[in-house]
Structure formats: structure tokens, C-alpha cells
């Protein structure tokens, strides 16, 4: 139990996907302008990461490993994730319209998010069992949420600052992102 907890907390803080592993930088910079869009995106990412890692784990174990095709993991996982997200979208539209609306355009957007693929590949590389894989992906999603929400707050503050003309827009955002990332560096070595 203790181990599982440290696995999850490690995924959130120490191995934060955005700020320590630099995966999923595109949505991190793209949708962190406002807190509510950041929350919408994060919700979709947590959801897709958890479900996708479960499916990719099964596909890997019972198809790829069995026929000794581990070198096809990347392409097979992309296929699985893309199909899965599409499927979830159609089902949600019918069965849970309110959830579909709140996830909105973010759901198809993360089909090609490298953080989702990254967590699926890491699960396999580290030879997690099914439960660990799910927990780790869930933690990774929460870490993504934490990074996005924190950074949305930072950016909302930047909006009201007097920034030198040449740094306005993306430059100051990148500088702020690197500072937030440095702060997360402090969690290194928290769990061993």
C-alpha cells in the first residue's frame, strides 16, 4: 500500500510529466491561459490517460509480447489510443451529454498528446503490473493537472504585469514555465 502511494505521489511531484519529463508541453502552453480551460483540459487528460494505459497494457501483454512484437509498441499504442478516444467520444455523446459537453473539444485534442503515449510506454518499460500501471497513469494525469492549474495561475498574474515590449506573449510565458519547472526540481529525491 505504502509503495503504491509513493508510486502515485512520485508520478505527481517527482516525475511530473510536464515539468520534469517535458511531455505534453503543447497543451501546457496552449490552454493554460485561463483557469477554467486548464481545468477542462486536465480533466480530459486524467480520464484518457487512465483508460488508455489500461487498454495499452492489455494490448501489450496479450498481443505484442505474445508474438514478440515489442518493437511495434509505439505505433500500436498510437492506434489504440486514437481509436479509444474516438470511441469514448461517441459513447459519451450518447450516454453522458453533460460530461461530453464539459470535456468538449479537449477530448479529441489529446488523442495525439505525447504525454498520453508517454505514460503508456513508460508503463511497459518499467514492467508495471496492471494495478500499478493504472495508478501511475492516474498520478501522471493528476501531475499534469497540478502543473496546468499552477501555471494558469502564474499566467493570469503575468497578464497584469508591466512586461518589456520584446518579451510580451510567448517569451515571458516560456521564462515563467522554466521557473515553475525549476521549482519542481526541488522534489527530486523525495521518494527513493
Amino acid at each position: 500500500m505504502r509503495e503504491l502511494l509513493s508510486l502515485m505521489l512520485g508520478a505527481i511531484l517527482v516525475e511530473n510529466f510536464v515539468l520534469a519529463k517535458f511531455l505534453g508541453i503543447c497543451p501546457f502552453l496552449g490552454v493554460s491561459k485561463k483557469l477554467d480551460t486548464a481545468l477542462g483540459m486536465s480533466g480530459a487528460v486524467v480520464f484518457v490517460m487512465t483508460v488508455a494505459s489500461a487498454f495499452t497494457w492489455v494490448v501489450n501483454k496479450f498481443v505484442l509480447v505474445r508474438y514478440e512484437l515489442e518493437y511495434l509498441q509505439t505505433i500500436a499504442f498510437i492506434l489504440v489510443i486514437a481509436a479509444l478516444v474516438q470511441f469514448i467520444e461517441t459513447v459519451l455523446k450518447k450516454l453522458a451529454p453533460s460530461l461530453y459537453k464539459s470535456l468538449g473539444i479537449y477530448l479529441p485534442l489529446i488523442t495525439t498528446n505525447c504525454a498520453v503515449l508517454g505514460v503508456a510506454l513508460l508503463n511497459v518499460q518499467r514492467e508495471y503490473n496492471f494495478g500499478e500501471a493504472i495508478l501511475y497513469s492516474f498520478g501522471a494525469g493528476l501531475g499534469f493537472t497540478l502543473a496546468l492549474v499552477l501555471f494558469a495561475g502564474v499566467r493570469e498574474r503575468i497578464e497584469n504585469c508591466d512586461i518589456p515590449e520584446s518579451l510580451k506573449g510567448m517569451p515571458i510565458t516560456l521564462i515563467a514555465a522554466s521557473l515553475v519547472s525549476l521549482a519542481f526540481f526541488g522534489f527530486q529525491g523525495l521518494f527513493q
Partner: protein
Amino acid sequence: MQILLPVLIIGGLGLIFGFGLAYASKKFEVKVDERVSQVREVLPGANCAACGQTGCDAFAEAVVAGEAEVNGCPVGGAEVSEKIGKILGKSAKNFEVRVARVMCGGSSSNCRSKYSYSGIEDCTAAAALFGGPSSCTYGCVGMGNCVRACPFGAIVIEDGLAKVIATKCTGCTKCVAACPKKIIDMVPISSEYTVRCSSFDSGKIVRQNCEVGCIGCGRCAKVCPHNAIKIENMLAKIDPALCQNCGECAKVCPTKAIELFLCGVLERENAAV
């Protein structure tokens, strides 16, 4: 075999997913009322949310479902509501055009300044500093938050005071939300007389701060034959629903805070041109 097997497996996976998705899209198909897309097409598409929905798509759905009025789109006005009415076979009720009006006459020449401000050009930021650079804490800050919020370019800053160009105003209410002092009101365009002041200060303080502020003397309320004016918190307010545009109030106002707007344009400035 070494080449064939991976091809078969990846191809097979793709095929299974493909059929699965095709099946799912049939099984979980959501029928969209085609009237929704028709209504959506006649809407302006600014997604301004003035209708109270989250955007034009949501409004189209709500109208078809009967949850929103046919004339609910203030930007599109009578023209759009007529078109929607045609699609849905309902008649649009009378549509009253509402425009934004700045309830303040405190331009730089009318209203004393408290200090000279040299921060960023933003009303909210300026207002956070002792209630803004103008001596009246209720009045227009003049840094143009409303100008930037207006998607239709209908607001300009003149002499430190926001001014709505009524011919361009579509009534989307974005400026109302953007103003940190909350001094922009939506009024029917037919409403001609307006108290151009939002100050709740007592008459003495208003006099000190501003040439054209409402001092709450109540002479307009006494003289109004239709009881359309109420004094609340030292500020006169004209109810557009009761006002008959007779103009008695503007005649007696000692500070000339009540002004005449014709077709939403300040008559005094109109005449000067």
C-alpha cells in the same frame, strides 16, 4: 513470416478498431435536429453570449428546444429574429433594440483629477489604486477596458470618458461586464433622457468633484409627470419603462446631469456637429 506477422497484427488491430468505431457511431448515433443548424446559420456567429447562452451554438439549440425566445439574440436584432421565426414557424415578438450607455459625464474637463496616473492602461488596475485617478470614485476611469472588450468597435474614449457610438452598438453587453466601475447600462434606444451619473456620494462631495454629477436634489423626481424618476442613494434614476420622454427633468436639473439622447446619440454633441 517475420514481416507478415506484424503487418497482419497491426492491420488486424486497425481493422478491428475501424469496424468497432463504425459500429459504435451507428449504435450511439445522436440525431441532430436539422433546424438547429439552420438557425445557427442565420445567427451572427460572434459567440458573444449576450443571449445568456454560452454561444451561438447553444442559443440555436435552446431556441429550437423552446427554451429561449425567438428574439433572444440582441446582436442580430429584428432581422435575425424574423429569420429564426420563419425557420421555426413562430412569429417573432416586437424586438426592442437596446444599446449600451455610459452612466457618467465625468470627462477630464468636468471631473477633477486626484493624482496623475502613469501605470498600465487598464481600468481595473487604475481603479485598484485609490479608486482611480479621477476624484470621483464612481465615475469612468477612462483607460478603455470597454473599448478593448467591444467586438464591434462601438466605444471610443473622448476626453477621458468612454462614449458609445450607438449606430455601431449591437447590445452584446460585453462592455457592461468589462467595466470595473459598473457604470455602463443597457437602455432601450428609444429612451431619450438619461442621468449621466453613477455617484452615490452626497451632493456636497459630488459638487466638489464634478461639474455634471447628480447631487440627488430630487427636483427632477418632483417635476416628472409620469413618476418615472426615483432618488436612491443620492442618485436619480429614470425608469425607461415609465419615461415618456417629455424632457421636464432635463430642464430643471441644476447640474445638467440629465442629458438628451436621440437615437442613442448625445443630442448636445450632435447639434455641435
